[in-house]
């Protein structure tokens, strides 16, 4: 049975780690749509998959957060990736498998997965 006091151990370990995340200007933001449309379409598992994979690969310059309705509800779940100095990438009809590919190709290696983007879907 876990008890909250065990958090003290985690705190001590985290405090010792140098936290590079906040100070860098080259932080990549990943926004997962979490309005009614996104949630109904399956955004919760997509977000979980992103968190797990990003952590597995120790990508420290990535922040995941949620966003509201973007207005393209029929394409939900939607994941937007915002990199400083570059155009925003909008991935649509996301699934947990696609999320893994986006993390490995785009976030870890800088290669946009064109077939998952809204540009490709709209054709």
């Amino acid at each position: 049975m876990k008890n909250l006091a065990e958090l003290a151990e985690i705190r001590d370990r985290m405090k010792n780690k140098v936290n590079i995340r906040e100070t860098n200007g080259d932080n990549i933001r990943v926004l997962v749509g979490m309005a009614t449309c996104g949630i109904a379409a399956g955004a919760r598992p997509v977000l979980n998959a992103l968190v797990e994979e990003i952590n597995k690969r120790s990508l420290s310059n990535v922040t995941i957060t949620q966003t509201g309705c973007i207005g393209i509800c029929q394409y939900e779940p939607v994941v937007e990736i915002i990199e400083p100095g570059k155009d925003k990438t909008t991935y649509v009809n996301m699934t947990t498998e696609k999320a893994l590919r986006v993390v490995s190709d785009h976030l870890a290696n800088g290669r946009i997965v064109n077939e998952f983007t809204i540009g490709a879907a709209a054709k």
Partner: protein
Amino acid sequence: MQEISLNILDLAQNSISAGAIVIKITIGENTALDTLTVSITDNGKGMSPLQLQSVIDPFYTTRATRKVGLGIPFFKMAAELTGGRFEIASTYGVGTELSGVFIRSHIDRMPLGDINATIITLIQCNPQLDFIYRHSFDERDFTLDTREVRKILEGVSLDEYEVIVFLKEYLSDGEKELINAN
């Protein structure tokens, strides 16, 4: 929405958009009364009496991207389909409180679903906000209050991976205790 926990994830977004910094999510399961009650209370900016009336209308929304706001209407319908009820109260400048009572054994009562995933998602995406999650099942009770977590962490963010992993296990243990009879 196939699970009540997804409705909760959705409704909590309203509290967050309203600028709430403390959001209370309470689930009470009572087998004697055959009810499952979900309530969400926040200290966001609240609503005027006129807005409060409009909020159950699926064609009312404050966002500009779409002409529908389905979160509350869906939740209200889900509760009423089971023979239960929905209530919402708000004070402008103070906050909002809503609750749905579901008749637990009704065939149309959708499952609660993965409520822990909902709570973790909320904390993960909003580490600066406080969530008080309380789930009771008859006489048994479990609470996760992020204010206590924050106190122990002394400045370490709640969305640090190790913290989230810990909280996931904490929630999972808590749920097991709730469900296991004796």
